[in-house]
Every structure is written in structure tokens, then in C-alpha cells.
């Protein structure tokens, strides 16, 4: 019995019961090799593609520091803080340098209040205007402004 036929019998719920333990294990091992093999091949190709991507999009001397320095909102801070049940998070969907400073202002205003209360709130509402004003049309405003 060839491997292909064995796999076919394994895949058919009607015939799998007829396989011996050894056959089942053999077929299972083939699936495991095939599966892990393809998984590795797929992810290795992805790795190569992403590595090439980095090379092709390399920017000579743009100072990228501020762009990504503030940790994205959806990641927990790495530092082991003293078990804070909740922490302030600023959900700015389209984070830019300036955006990251706005919450600081608001937080400063809120910090006028004494206790740890400010540590407990999340400013979730500061948003870029990008797609807000007229639905489906905003993206092109810049284009227009630069054209005329």
C-alpha cells in the first residue's frame, strides 16, 4: 500500500478503523512530517520575504526615533510595576508624535486631582480627524489641498 493510498484511508472516517495501529502511526507520522515541513517552508519563505522587505524599504537617514518610541497602546508595558490593577492607556488609533503629547496635557489637567485616581482612567477619545468629517471622502482632502 503506497503512502498516498494510506493517507486517503486515514482521511476517510469509514476506513480509518480498518487500519492497523502501525499503519495509523505511519500515516500519522507522514502527516506530521508533511505538516511541519510545509509550516516551516511557509514561514521560512515569509522570513525571507520580510527580510528582503526591510532591505528594500531601508531609509538612509530619517530619524525614526520618535515614531515608535511610545509603546503602542495595545501592548502591556514591559516594566514590572507594583501590581497596578489598571493602568492609563491612550488609545490613539493613528499614533503620531504629536498625538502622543496630547494625552500628556489631558493627563496633566487630570493630575490636578490628588489621589491615584488618574492612574485609573483611560483616555480613549482622542482621535485623528483622518476619516471623520465626511464619510469616505476625507482621505483625498490632502491631495486636493496640494493640487490647487
Amino acid at each position, binding site marked *: 500500500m503506497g503512502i498516498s493510498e494510506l493517507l486517503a484511508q486515514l482521511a476517510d472516517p469509514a476506513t480509518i478503523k480498518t487500519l492497523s495501529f502501525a499503519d495509523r502511526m505511519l500515516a500519522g507520522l507522514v502527516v506530521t512530517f508533511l505538516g511541519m515541513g510545509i*509550516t516551516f517552508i511557509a*514561514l521560512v*519563505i515569509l522570513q525571507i520575504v520580510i527580510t528582503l522587505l*526591510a532591505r528594500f*524599504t531601508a531609509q538612509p537617514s530619517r530619524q525614526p526615533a520618535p515614531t515608535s518610541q511610545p509603546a503602542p497602546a495595545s501592548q*502591556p508595558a514591559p516594566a514590572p510595576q507594583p501590581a497596578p490593577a489598571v493602568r492609563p492607556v491612550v488609545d490613539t*488609533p*493613528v499614533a503620531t508624535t504629536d498625538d502622543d503629547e496630547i494625552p500628556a496635557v489631558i493627563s496633566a489637567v487630570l493630575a490636578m486631582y490628588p489621589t491615584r485616581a488618574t492612574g485609573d482612567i483611560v483616555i480613549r477619545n482622542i482621535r485623528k480627524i483622518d476619516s471623520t468629517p465626511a464619510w469616505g471622502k476625507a482621505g483625498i482632502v490632502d491631495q486636493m489641498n496640494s493640487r490647487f
Partner: protein
Amino acid sequence: MLAALAEFIHSMGIFNLTLGHILMIGIACLLIYLAIVKGFEPLLLIPIAFGVLLTNLPLADMMAEPIIEIKDKVIHTVQPGGLMYYLFQGDHLGIFPPLIFLGVGAMTDFGPLIANPKSLLLGAAAQFGIFITFLAAIGSGLFTAQEAASIGIIGGADGPTAIFLSSRLAPHLLGSIAIAAYSYMAMVPIIQPPIMRLLTTKEERAIKMTQLREVSKKERILFPILVTIVVALIVPPATTLIGMLMIGNLFRECGVAGRLEDTAKNALINTITIFLGLSVGATATAENFLRVETLAILFLGVTAFAIGTAAGVLLAKLMNKVMGGGINPLIGSAGVSAVPMAARVSQVVGQKENPSNFLLMHAMGPNVAGVIGSAVAAGILLSLFK
């Protein structure tokens, strides 16, 4: 009058309650307890547990199939089905899991993976858990290949992938598999650390990793497009999951679709989560769940997690040796996904050894790679066994 009353009383749920129902209601309450008091994946376990509860209340018939009639080319519903039946169609037809992935993509920062593409290897290694468990399930003689594949995918540590695959291959096990997957994902901080310590030396755990490079906006935008194309060209059945994950991520990174990103990661994913959780839980009826197979699933599931963890750590160890150091093997365990819990575990275990060690961002790479890896593995299993 008394006869009428007697008849009515016989239609009460309490007079149709079996031991199986009571056990399942107990399990539902236990899951709710774990979710609320112990904090086990509450956003999914609460709906799932409530679905288990509702489906095991006798005569409530929340999963009843509708009766239809076709007359003159028009479909009429003669008797509507139960609410859970309708919600379950979203799982059964494979609609809900990819929509959850849409929202997950909108929430996920793939930056650490782009900055360190080697992470993908660790994300691949952790899928060993899936296939070894598949092998064990096949060997046990209890399961068909379809069932064994669905059980193995628990080791992917990724709820929507597990539900997507098992809804297609073994819908009758959906409830047990979903409950196992989400419970174990919540228990990652308990399952992983002993394995991680066992397989690494003190020196390895103390290795400090250099800071990750900046990732440009261009890379972030091209990444989801390239991943979709590459994965789809190699494993077509993975396209649905990976494609939706990546369009969600594109909404997030492109900077001009904030509205869509916002809805994908809030209103839409929350709505689907409620529907998916309730209806997946509702498949766990007493007769489906109270079987020896469920115990086997629970046991095999935790094995899958353990093997995935070990495989990730061992490959990271190997990479550290081959590539001349600088890779802390603890980040390998994050390859099982369970985002971001597994990455946090790497961070915490590493910091215990060396308090100045910050592995979190390095572990996020294998962590999100594990999501891609599991979807790829699910696609392979689908193409073999559908």
C-alpha cells in the same frame, strides 16, 4: 383542571432534568467562576459558559432546527429554530472565526516580528504540539483523522483557528475543543514556566537581547499584503483566516482607515465574540460532552500545549547556539501564540533570572508568528482531511 395542571407541570424543565444536565450546569458554573474570579479569558469563557448553561436547561430547545417549506420558489419558515441554532450558523458556515481574526488583526502590532523575522522560525516550531498531538490522538484509536486534527489544533493556542478548523472537520467536538482551547490559553502562565525552566540553563535564561530596530511605516503597510500573498500561495485553505487577520492589520497600519479599524476591533469583534461564545458553548450538550472522549481531549490538549512550548524553547536554544548567542531561549515558548499571555510569561520568567532583562518585545515576535503558524497548520490539516 388538575389534568391540565399536571400536563403543564410535566412540561416544566425541572421534571425533565437529568443527571447529565445537572453536571453540565455545574460545569457551566465552574467555567463562569474561573472566568470571573480567576480571570481565565473572561471575554470568551463567560459567553461560552453561559451557552453551556442555556443548552443544558431541559426543554428550552435553544438549538432547535427550524422547519421550512418551499412552495412556489419561496422558502417559508414554518417553525422558527432556537436562537442558538441561528447564532451557531455563524460558526458552522465558517463566518465568525475570520471576523474575529479581522478584529485581532486590527489590534495586533506585528512590529516586533517585522523587526526580527527569525521569530517566524519559533512560531513554526511551536506548531509541533499540533502534529504530535494529532499523532497521539490517531494512535489512541479513539478518534478519526478529522477529530484528531481538531484536537491537535488546541495546541495552536488560538481560539478562532481551533473553532474554524473543528467546525469544518468535527463539529460535534466543537464545544469540548473550544472550552479546552480557551481554558488552556488562560492557563498558559501555569503550564509553561516549569517546561521552560526544565529545558534551559540558568545562563541561557539570563541572556540579554539587543533592542529591536525601528520598523518603518512602509514595512508595516506592506507586511500584511505580502503575508497574505505568500501564505495563500503555499497553503490556500489558510487564506480565509490569514487574509482577514491581515486586512484588519492593514486597516490599523495604513493610517487612512481609522474608522474601519475602530469598528473592526470594537463593535464588530465584540458582537461576534458574544455570538460565537454563546453558540459554541451551546454545542456542549450533556450527551456531546459527558463522554470519555472529552477527557481524552482535555488530556491531549494540555499535552499539545506542553509539546508546543518545549519545541519552541528547544529551537530557540538551538538558534542561540548556531547563531552565536544573543537569543534568549525563553522567547521560544511564546511561539505557541496565546497572545500576549505567552510573551508575558517569557518576560516574567526571564526577569526572575535577571531583573534587568526585558524580553517582552522580543517574545512578541514569536508570539504573533505563532498565530500565523497555527493558521498555516490549520490550512494544511484542512487540505488533508476536508
